[in-house]
């Protein structure tokens, strides 16, 4: 398993290098628990993620996380193999 936390603001994306292709991935806002995105339909905050192959890393697979948030948000990511 790989896991970690991110601090996000504004909008953007990040590619997190993975060891290999995962069996399961979870990405969620820390203060909302593990819920489908968008986290809260009453807020503009959005979180998306996907696993894809990439030339960015020698390990070939990355977890791409995209976001658009109104304030600073904490995000948890977990990757199971």
């Amino acid at each position: 398993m790989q896991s970690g936390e991110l601090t996000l603001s504004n909008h953007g994306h990040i590619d997190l290098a993975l060891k290999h292709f995962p069996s399961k991935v979870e990405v969620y806002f820390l203060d909302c628990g593990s819920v489908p995105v968008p986290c809260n339909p009453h807020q503009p905050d959005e979180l998306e993620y996907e696993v894809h192959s990439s030339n960015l890393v020698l390990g070939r697979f990355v977890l791409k996380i995209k976001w658009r948030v109104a304030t600073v948000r904490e995000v948890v990511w977990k990757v199971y193999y």
Partner: protein
Amino acid sequence: MASSNGEGSCLESVLLKKILVFGFYHKGNAGDNFFIDAFQVLFPDFDFQFINHITKHHLLNIDGVFIGGGSLIGEPISLDDGVFDLLKQQNIFYIGVGSETNIHPQHLQLLQIATLITIRNKEGLEKIKKINPKTIVIPDLVHSLTPKLSNCKIHKSILFLPNVLVMPQFDDPHWKYSAWEYFKTETAQFLDLMIKQNYYLSFFPLSTNFELNDIFAGIEINNRMQYRDSGYFINNDSSFAAITHLMSQYSLIITQRYHGIILAEMLNIPCLAISHHHKINSSFGHNISYYGLTKDQLKKETEKIFASLPKVSPNLPFNSNISGFEELIRKVKDALCGD
């Protein structure tokens, strides 16, 4: 548009000055390639040609030669036979060079006749001033650039910038082998410990030269680790914006490269420099010597840095500031104006 005090006409005359810039350009070293962007930011009116080898043809119809930036005065100048005497007839400027090395006899001759010398550290000022008093200190040229910041910070993350130059080749002296073998073993143990503690680790090469790729060094360290993983290695696409965007996502930079320190300082990221060379003895962040480094030292320094970090927060906006270069810009333009 000349002004009555003559300042306008002076500025007009420096427009489109043709400048040849000699340094370690186009060789896959990110630090040296950043200087290309920096010169164009500092002197937007000049027409630059960046080269790493000088021929007779390069010296035709130019207004001056910039030598720099970087640590190059200890090395011979790469040029064709018979070109050195032609080079000495040019308007020579040393811009943003390191003064920590010995001086090669070719550079000594050119330093003596240079119109202006700007070095990037105070330590060498007296030494260079004795050769030519027209010497000033300026910040590293990369400070003139505006980094691109990420809107994401990865908690407990380490970006390791290895340096291929410390790796021995078969004909190197024994001490270089011993130092590298010891360093690899200790560093691998330290990084394994960090992985066990759920740190996110990446290796990133600031040099991707065909023969001197920092990934070579990173792979040897990775090979010594129990938790070795090809996913640690990130490719370098060499643009200043892409590199600063990537680096700004990390919470700690461990660097064996000089420009790792400079970028960490610009991005306000804690930095641990592993020094094998005088120029990597950083005034920013923490330093440890490459020689005889232990995993306990690395662990202690890293814990100290993470303990002093405030709660992880997003990157602050960066305000571009080239005020440290005003004297350089004025002196270069004055010298070229007087032609």
